[in-house]
Structures are given as structure tokens and as C-alpha cells.
């Protein structure tokens, strides 16, 4: 370490005055090198995004050289596996399948997730919390392949067919969608709880002081105050469901379907990608290119949902912090 007393600078009058500014030493060069290394590590995440966009864009452009973009975006028949006249690249059935399954999932996950979140934030005694929180964490940690197994081998045959007596196929939207919803419950419940816990205590006290009971306070005061966080939770949950692959691949089947019947088999964008890309698709074939163009579509849709939810989260943080 250089002794500050011996570090001098020469002033305009030729006098040597002790300098308060250290000269760049070996030590500060080391510090700069560390900083540069750390920045390089941070830049890897940028490189990842660029690599994703580059991978997707390359083949997407190649795809649109063969197929007009209008036929892709507005076509109602998806059959890339066929040849000649039968072959068709209309993506609408895949987009519909994705949102149809997500919709069924959210029908389950929104009420269950929000009610669980409200309960955890406003009502749960410590004893109950100590059980419910780990259950949600465990549920969130179960790999999606396990949910897929559960949907195919238990939920479809034993619950939907035997218990409820529904005439569903082996692969159907109802089973895949509901289990998709179970997957999303912990995401929504946890985020709803967080955003409601961020509401200041004074609002609850004010409400109680006006004679509201706990339920009224929770529903009419705390919940509206946390609304942007709740909406962000729902958007993030939807984004997870839209991107989920394996449950739909296993239990939803692989039929590009544009109908409204939940007992039929549907295919989503993510499930199509996994079903088609098994590592041995020849590079440059139109089949290979469909993986990327559908991937690009999925990437853009989830990106949009994420941006919306990040905006909303920022909004509710700003109000009270």
C-alpha cells in the first residue's frame, strides 16, 4: 500500500505538495480487473438473450421464405407433418390450444390461488401457516413431468372417468388444463400473499375502526389496495401456463384442434415444439423450421406477458414503499 505521505504532485510553482489523490497502483489495477470480470459475467445473461433471439430469428426468416406470413398467422389448419396438398401451416389451432388449456388452468388457479393468498396474508394463524406454506412450496417444487404422469395415469382415468363419469379421451384438454392449474396455484397464491402483505397496517386499522369485520376488511380494503400486485400474479401465472410443455405433451395429446370441446385432445405451441424436436430432425427441413417459428411466437407472447407483469409489480411497489 503506497504511503499517502510520500505521494507527491508538483504544483505550478515547483513546490512538491502532498497529493490527496492516489496514483493508480497495482492494487487499483487489480480492482479494475475484478470489476471487468464481474461485468463480463453479468454480460453472459445479455448474450443468452441475444443467442435465443438469434437462434429463433435465423430459422424463422428461412420459414417465411417458404410460407407466406399471412398463411401462418391467420391459417386455421396446422398439419406440417403431411406432404403436398394436405400440408398446412396455419398457427391459429396451436395458439388457440395454448390459450384454451391456459384458460381451463386459470379457471382453477385463479379462485384457488387468490383465496389461498388472501387466507395466508390476512387470516392464517401461525400454526396453520407453518403447514400451508411448506405444502405450497413443495407443490411449486414438484417437477412438471410428475404432474404430467399424475394427469395421464390418475386424473384422467380415475377422477374424470370413474369418479365423475365423464366421457373423456385418454388425451384431453380437461385433465391437462386442470393439472396445469394446480401447477400455477403456488405461483399465484405466493404473489397474492406478498402483495397483500405489503399493504400498510393503517388501512386495516382504519377499516376495523369503521366497524368492518376481518372478511370485509380483507375483501373491500386490502384486496383492492393490492390489486395491481394481484393482477401481476395472474399474468405471471398465465405466462407459466402458456410456456408449460410436458403436462400438455403427456396428457393433452398432440392434435392441433380449433374446437371448444374439453374432452378432446389439444396441442399447445410448447407441446408441439417438444413433440417435433426430438434432436433428430434434419437441419434445414421445413419441419425443423416450424420448431423455430412456433418458438418465436411463444417467446414473443410470454415476453409480452412478462413485461406487463413487471410493470404492474413496479407500480404496486411504488405506492407504499
Amino acid at each position: 500500500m503506497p504511503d499517502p505521505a510520500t505521494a507527491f504532485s508538483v504544483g505550478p510553482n515547483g513546490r512538491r505538495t502532498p497529493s490527496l489523490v492516489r496514483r493508480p497502483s497495482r492494487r487499483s489495477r487489480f480492482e479494475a480487473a475484478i470489476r471487468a470480470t464481474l461485468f463480463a459475467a453479468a454480460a453472459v445473461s445479455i448474450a443468452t438473450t441475444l443467442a435465443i433471439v438469434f437462434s429463433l430469428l435465423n430459422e424463422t426468416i428461412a420459414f417465411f421464405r417458404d410460407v407466406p406470413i399471412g398463411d401462418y398467422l391467420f391459417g386455421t389448419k396446422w398439419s406440417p407433418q403431411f406432404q403436398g396438398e394436405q400440408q398446412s401451416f396455419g398457427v391459429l389451432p396451436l395458439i388457440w390450444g395454448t390459450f384454451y388449456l391456459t384458460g381451463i388452468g386459470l379457471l382453477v388457479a385463479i379462485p384457488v390461488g387468490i383465496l389461498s393468498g388472501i387466507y395466508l396474508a390476512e387470516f392464517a394463524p401461525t400454526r396453520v401457516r407453518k403447514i400451508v406454506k411448506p405444502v405450497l412450496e413443495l407443490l411449486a417444487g414438484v417437477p412438471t413431468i410428475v404432474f404430467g404422469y399424475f394427469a395421464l395415469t390418475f386424473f384422467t382415468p380415475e377422477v374424470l372417468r370413474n369418479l365423475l363419469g365423464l366421457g373423456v379421451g385418454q388425451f384431453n384438454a380437461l385433465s391437462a388444463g386442470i393439472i396445469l392449474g394446480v401447477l400455477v396455484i403456488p405461483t399465484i397464491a405466493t404473489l397474492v400473499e406478498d402483495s397483500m402483505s405489503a399493504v400498510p397496517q393503517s388501512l386495516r386499522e382504519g377499516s376495523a375502526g369503521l366497524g368492518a369485520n376481518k372478511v370485509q376488511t380483507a375483501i373491500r380494503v386490502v384486496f383492492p389496495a393490492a390489486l395491481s400486485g394481484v393482477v401481476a400474479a395472474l399474468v405471471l401465472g398465465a405466462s407459466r401456463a402458456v410456456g408449460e410443455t410436458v403436462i400438455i405433451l403427456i396428457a393433452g395429446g398432440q392434435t392441433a384442434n380449433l374446437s371448444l370441446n374439453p374432452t378432446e385432445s389439444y396441442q399447445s405451441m410448447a407441446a408441439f415444439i417438444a413433440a417435433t424436436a426430438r434432436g433428430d430432425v434434419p437441419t434445414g427441413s421445413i419441419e425443423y423450421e416450424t420448431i423455430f417459428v412456433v418458438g418465436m411466437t411463444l417467446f414473443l407472447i410470454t415476453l409480452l406477458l412478462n413485461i406487463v407483469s413487471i410493470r404492474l409489480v413496479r407500480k404496486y411497489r411504488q405506492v407504499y414503499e
Partner: protein
Amino acid sequence: MTGAQIAERAARRAVIPQASGADRAFATFFRVLMYTAVGISMLALVTLLYDVARDGLPKVSWDFLTSFPSRIIPENSGIESAIWGTLWLMAVCAAIVVPLGIATAIYLEEYADRTKWWNRLVEVNIQNLAAVPSVVYGILGLAFIVRGPLDLGRVVLAGGITLALLVLPVVIIVAREAIRAVPPSIREGSLALGATQWQTIWKQVLPGSIAGIMTGIILALSRAIGETAPLIVIGAAVNPRFNPDGLGSAFTALPIQIFAWTTDKDREFVELAAAAILVMMVVLLLMNSFAIFLRNRYEQKW
């Protein structure tokens, strides 16, 4: 009338808010709804575990753990190659994620000037990457790592890199929180004693946050273990009768083996899937317990 009497009469007539019968009935109804909601999550978890245990438990044995998968005979089938494949993938994944994740988190928390646009870009970018569907990482792996610029082929290294990129945002986000939890006074004290910024980070900030960072890494790895979609897309081997012998070897993994067996037409193979799920869930449970243990044992209270 005295003042006290006036006050008393006024108090008697005052509108003291009272919940009506309807309000109370609704409160009860709403509570029942909430209990039902919480009950549904619990029921789902219990049924799921019960289903997997019922199907899989009779099939788990030492032979199951130490045999290669068979395409024909379920009784001789096992998950040895899947276990080794998963271990190799996790080793590669950890070797990439640990230095990169911690370095990025340190940069963002200790160095980055948030008024600069590129630092904000890195932050927003990581938030977005965390929510990119895993199948899209599979596409990245297929087009950029297995083929394309890196051209590694369908090998352990390619699978490990793909999974590492997938869970990197999780590690960064958790590590940042752990670093942020170290109070500024610790840094100020260290700097005041003449330590440089890096010495402060290395000797004070990192030791103070390492428990939280380790927790994040374990959670990220336990997510990577169960990831199926990206490995399907990059083309992990199905039913290989060999263990990977290096970074350039073909591989399978537990979720891939489970996927292959679940989608098999033969019911006996489907039961093997349940047995493999049990093994995977036990590993995950051990990892999560270890993470909780680390958090409780080593977490600093400031």
C-alpha cells in the same frame, strides 16, 4: 341536564357500527371458501404423492437402481444410466452456474450504477430470462449449442450448458437478495479500515451471504433436475444401455427416462415411470431439506 348526562345520552344514540346478520353469514361463507381453496392444494399434493407411491413403490429395488433400461422386459429395466446422466448434468450445471451466478449478483449489487442504461438493461433482461419458457431454452440448446455456432452434438456438456442457462436467472435473483441482506454498515466499517472494495466483498460481504447464496444454488439445481422439455428438444438419448463417460458422451437423465416410460403403451413400463419419479422426488426432498438446513444453521442475523 349535566354535561355527563348529555354525553351519555348521545353515546347511547350514536351509531356504533354493527355487522348485520347477512355480513356475518357472508364472512362465514368466505372463510369456508378460503379453507376449501387451501384444502385443494393439500389434497392435490397428497393425492399426487399417494398415486406415485402406490404405482412405484413395489418396483423400487436395488436392481432397479443398478440396471440399464430395457426396451422389452420391464422386470430387467432400471435407471442406472439415467442416474449417472443426471449426476453428470448437475455437475456441469453447477460448475457453470456457481461462478457465473455469484459474479453477476455481486456485480449488480456492489458495483452496478443504476443510473447507467446498460446496468438497467442487465437487470430487466434477467427478469425476462427468468420467465422464458424452458422449451425455448431447449431451442437455444438445439440451434446454438448442439448444432450451429458451438456444434457440440447431443452430449453431456451441451445438456449441462442448456440447463445452466435456464436456471442462471434463479441463482442470480436469490444471490442478489442474500447479498442485499448484508447491512451497509458492515461494508462501511471494512472500507473505513482501509480495505478495498474487492477485499470488502471477499472478506465481509460474501461470508455474510454465503448461506443464502448456497440455498439459491441448491434450489436452482433441484429445478434443473426435473426439467424435461429442454432435454427432449436437444435430443437426450432414450433408453441408453451405457453410462456417460465424459463431457462428450451421449446421455439420458431421470426426467427423460420418466417421460419415455410414462408415454409407453405397456402398463408395466408406466409403473417403472412411477418408481423413477419416487427416486427423483426423494433426491429433490433431500436437496431441499439440505437447503433449509443451511438456511437455518448458517444464516446470519444482523
